[in-house]
């Protein structure tokens, strides 16, 4: 359990907070959105993040990374979450870096990890096939042929799918749909023949794409990890990613709550600050409870990763479920407590709310993780 920050981690948090505040405040996301068509993140800022070591935070130093460890990763995500900062931090440097580092061959690690750490290669994980997260419901088929595989099927809602240079795709090599066994991960360039990407315009203005695979021919060397064992790799990679998302959501929750409190102290009606009304005070105190519990589960989730504990799966589900529900509540309250202004695009409340729902759906919402927590607990 690492509930107390070391001096080193304190510094990292400060650096991250400063960076996102200076370079990627909420107005940055707003500007990208208002520019319309184009990238969902700023490539130059991503380079800057790489210089600070954020792009390689999950990558060992041997492969050009900074190896901040899980807690360091959580802190960076928390600060990014506060500003709704859009970048390849999640899809490339968390999900994909963890997948390559965890399951990749020596050649794959050497080929990709230093590029990720340097901010020179964007990845998109393409795991889901439906509107709701179901990691083992894989119909996309990889048929074995001479010298490799042929992929056919459709992956949906791949984060950064439009911008990615490379893709990590889960496909079925044996077994039935919904079997954990028989899934294999493939790593290949996004411009491979037969790949068609359709960028999706999502409510949160972040990049996402559907990916159509029409007989994509891949060599043996594009298999990531063991054949048919992609399900197990996915569990690990998804759990790390879920805890990272929960950290990001915790940051958003803290930021929103601070804004709500400031508003309650400043906004006056009936000749008094609205924060003096007991009905609102109690709602604020309730939110505070949610944030404190969220803090506990997110940090213990990060500790579980850091210490290599055997309850990482439980903690990932606990953290992701709790933060999904808590942030839904807090974003709703943020709009309501800001009154009519909360409904306007001028205030940021809507941006947080839209992002929160995408964050909740990504890799499993509260319902998904309650069912999983029950399964893991033997009931």
């Amino acid at each position, binding site marked *: *359990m690492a509930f107390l920050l070391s001096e080193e981690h304190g510094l990292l948090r400060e650096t991250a907070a400063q960076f996102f505040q200076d370079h990627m405040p909420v107005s940055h996301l707003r500007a990208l959105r208002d520019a319309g068509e184009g990238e969902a993140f700023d490539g130059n800022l991503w380079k800057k993040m790489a210089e600070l070591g954020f792009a390689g935070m999950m990558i060992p130093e041997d492969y050009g990374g900074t190896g901040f460890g899980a807690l360091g990763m959580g802190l960076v995500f928390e600060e990014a979450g506060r500003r709704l900062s859009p970048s390849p931090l999640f899809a490339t440097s968390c999900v994909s870096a963890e997948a390559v580092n965890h399951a990749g061959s020596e050649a794959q690690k050497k080929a990709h990890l230093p590029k990720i750490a340097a901010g020179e290669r964007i990845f998109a994980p393409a795991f889901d096939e439906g509107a709701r997260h179901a990691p083992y419901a894989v119909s996309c088929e990889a048929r074995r042929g001479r010298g490799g595989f042929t992929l056919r099927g459709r992956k949906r809602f791949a984060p950064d799918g439009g911008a990615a240079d490379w893709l990590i795709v889960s496909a079925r090599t044996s077994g039935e749909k919904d079997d954990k066994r028989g899934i294999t991960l493939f790593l290949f360039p996004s411009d491979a023949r037969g790949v068609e990407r359709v960028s999706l315009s999502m409510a949160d203005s972040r990049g996402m794409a559907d990916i159509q695979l029409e007989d994509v021919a891949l060599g043996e060397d594009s298999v990531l990890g063991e054949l048919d064992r992609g399900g197990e790799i996915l569990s690990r990679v998804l759990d790390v990613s879920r805890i990272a998302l929960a950290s990001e959501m915790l940051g958003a929750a803290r930021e929103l709550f601070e804004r709500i409190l400031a508003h309650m102290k400043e906004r006056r009606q009936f000749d*008094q600050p609205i924060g003096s009304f007991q009905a609102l*005070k*109690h709602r*604020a*105190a309730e939110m505070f409870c949610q944030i404190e519990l969220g*803090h*506990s589960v997110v940090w*213990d989730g990060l500790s579980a990763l850091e210490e290599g504990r055997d309850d990482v799966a439980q903690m990932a589900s606990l953290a992701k479920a709790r933060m999904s529900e808590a942030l839904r509540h807090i974003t709703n309250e943020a709009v309501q407590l800001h009154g009519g202004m909360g409904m306007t695009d001028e205030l940021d409340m809507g941006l947080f709310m839209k992002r929160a729902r995408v964050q909740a759906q990504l890799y499993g919402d509260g319902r998904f993780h309650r069912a999983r927590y029950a399964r893991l607990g033997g*009931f």
Partner: protein
Amino acid sequence: MAFREEVRAWLEENCPPSMRTPMPEEEQVWGGRRAEWRNPDSKIWMERAAAKGFTAPLWPQNYGGAGLTKEEAKILAQEMARIRARPPLLSFGIWMLGPVLLEFGNEAQKKEHLPKIAKGEIRWCQGYSEPGAGSDLAGLQTKAEDKGDHYLVNGQKIWTSYADKADWIFCLVRTDKSKKHDGISFLLIDMDDKGVETKPIRLISGASPFCETFFANVRVPKENLVHDLHKGWTVAKRLLQYERNAISDFRGDIITSGGGAMEDVAKDYCGEEKGAVADGAMRDAVSAHKMESHAFGLTLRRVQEEAKAGGPTAATSILKYFGAEHNKRRFELLLEMMGMEALGWEGQSFSDSQLATARNWLRSKGNSIEGGTSEIQLNVIAKRVLGLPD
């Protein structure tokens, strides 16, 4: 390391085997002049622990404690947990009065009262609430008049836990009518004194853990005033902090030890299919509840860790509120799962645990009232932690 081995050896030699089994409620040891001993081993265990100071490990040795450091006390607790030793003595004196006497009491008061508390000789109860002073505790009216060599006390207290079994009561009394908070004093009263009477209150659960306590011209020696005259509110607030900590610690224990049972109840009463609770909606509810327990348990641990490091402990403020509400939700969920069988009142047609569920469900409703209502807790968070205006 040496201390751990010493404690282990002492426990091995001194904790009777029957004191290493789960404790039924009727074998709880609260001490006092009228203590009853259903199991003679309980008395032996309490006396041995008290002789060693282990009933109040953190108190100085000259006041009946063991004078342990926090680290040593933790080791003692761990070693007792390891052999599943029962607590040798449960006591409001140890949890609430003792800590404030150590802080605010004079030397004579500490010498007189602390050792008797630690040895389980005197059982204390709390005289705070009154019929007209609940959440607005400082509105209390039980008065103590200065009669030269003593105070004359008249009035009524309510919700005095186990007053009918207690020997002494620590009371908040009004010594100045012209001021609210600054007219309250903290007084220790022997319940054997003439004019003190108690009457148990029957609760919705059928049990009577609380009493009304009446004071009619009770003469209380002046040396029983703790801290300065009219400064009782300071003592009272500090004592409430100890009380809330004790309640949330206790609740933490319940949650960690009893939390595993929810899914078994669900399987028993709602059916099981391939190892899972058959009713999907119920399974979702049980999982949500267990996850909440898990998150609350982690928050307790975080608060302890932060407190030990002297860091910020804002999260402390949520423990009483959240713990109480969580426990109430727990019993409502048990009722939903067990259906009619959780609603039996008495008789052979129901199992002991079914009957206990009904009674404990009703008892749990008090969790969000006693020791500061949930509404007051939320007010405190809003004001003290969040800085929202009055």
